[in-house]
């Protein structure tokens, strides 16, 4: 209990003073996870919608694979991307290892399945509702995809939030491909891991509380947005 109250006090002090190292770490965490969420959305939303609407051989196994891939262990993804980006690996020429873009790539790989699988579920439910009317209106496959994605946008916001939450909370992938370099690739989760391993538990816990608060606040925001949208748009 002593450590926890110490951590609380430390966390509040850090935030109040806007400790520059803290803001740098938090800023990088947000930048990396938001960028990877964005990239995953660009890939995952259309992918999920296409699988929801399309009828093609191998569709059922693909859905099972997407759902299973939601549980990809971050550390395995990290190792895989590390081997890809290492100078000794196929994409070594890009020189991306141990930089923030590498972290974005790893997190994108991690959360694309989440966004695609959840989008598929949501769009498939909406498709069931709209299918006949859209076909009656001669909507093409592409037009229907876009219409459904836009119409379910508030549910999809929740999906993006789930993806962001997973990205912001993981440490296994970013620590391997980023190297936890002070001032360059150190994010909240890797900083917590480092401080814990140094035995500086109050600091680690303080950072952890800040991370939890951030993610919690975003979830509350999204929930309220959905409530408002439901009232406004029905």
């Amino acid at each position, binding site marked *: 209990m002593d450590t926890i109250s110490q951590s609380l006090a430390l966390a509040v002090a850090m935030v109040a003073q806007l400790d520059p190292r803290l803001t740098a770490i938090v800023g990088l965490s947000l930048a990396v996870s938001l960028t990877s969420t964005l990239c995953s959305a660009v890939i995952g939303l259309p992918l999920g919608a296409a699988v929801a609407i399309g009828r093609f051989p191998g569709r059922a196994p693909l859905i099972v694979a997407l759902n299973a891939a939601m549980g990809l262990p971050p550390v395995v993804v990290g190792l895989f991307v590390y081997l890809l980006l*290492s100078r000794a690996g196929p994409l070594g020429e890009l020189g991306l290892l141990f930089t923030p873009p590498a972290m974005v790539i790893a997190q994108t790989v991690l959360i694309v399945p989440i966004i695609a699988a959840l989008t598929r579920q949501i769009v498939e439910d909406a498709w069931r509702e709209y299918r006949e009317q859209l076909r009656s209106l001669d909507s093409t496959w592409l037009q229907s995809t876009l219409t459904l994605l*836009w119409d379910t946008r508030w549910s999809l916001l929740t999906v993006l939030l789930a993806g962001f939450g997973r990205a912001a909370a993981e440490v296994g992938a970013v620590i391997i491909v980023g*190297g936890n*370099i*002070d001032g360059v690739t150190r994010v909240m989760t890797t900083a917590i891991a*480092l401080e814990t*391993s*140094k*035995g*500086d538990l109050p600091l680690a816990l303080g950072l952890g509380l800040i991370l939890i608060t951030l993610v919690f606040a975003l979830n509350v925001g999204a929930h309220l947005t959905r409530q408002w949208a439901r009232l406004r748009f029905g």
Partner: protein
Amino acid sequence: MRSSIFRHVLVCGALCLFAADAVAQQPFIVVASTTSTEQSGLFKHLLPEFEKDTGIQVRVVAVGTGQALDIGRRGDADVVFVHDRAAELKWLDEGHGVKRYPVMYNDFVLIGPQADPAHVDGGKDITVALKTIAAAKAPFVSRADNSGTHAAELRLWKDAGIDIQRVKGPWYRETGSGMGPALNTASALGAYILADRGTWLNFQNRGPLRVLVEGDKRLFNQYGVMLVNPDKHPNVKKKLGQKFIDWLVSKRGQDAIAGYKIGGEPLFFPNAGTDS
């Protein structure tokens, strides 16, 4: 409305990546080093001095010695800075590096619980202490992670005439982790553990642990720095990397190392130019 949101989001994403790129305009090198050097706080003290002198940013990836050498082998770092002489020489032999420069040394200490079930406190001979611990089957935490510290620990068991792989039992806990997590484990278990003095001095979660055996010449821990072979990996920044190495072994660098103290005690002792 839909397209304007999309445009906003694209611009933000692009800005983020461009900003990251702009930061990278400053010249930098990637140094693969060990957790003990980083967690002791040495780099925090040393690197700003180097950056002031040369304008070069040093990006340290701190992992175990084994992994650091592997990173160098793959060409993902420009310089390797570790503390396992035997492994370093082997690495050079295999052609992964250019030349080894001794930089500094510190020592290992045997840490243990206040209760000291094996009664090794105050001893001056590490091999005697280890023999006693093994005989008493007292709890002992090993990093078991291919690090310099782990390699040193295995060497000391051998020096004590103990075949630890044969003799080990439930009392010998192999955590496969860095120095800090291993110390955390030892603190929680009340176990003995071999640690480098630098990390120990910086470690805050001591619990019942204290230094029990120190000063044995066998506990000497030498650090060496090497440039990754640019013939094997053309991407290595050999000029900037060599500047770092030269700085470390120069009077300026050596003085900076000696100047790093915690509670008045220096953690590392510069010894460049010696045959270590």
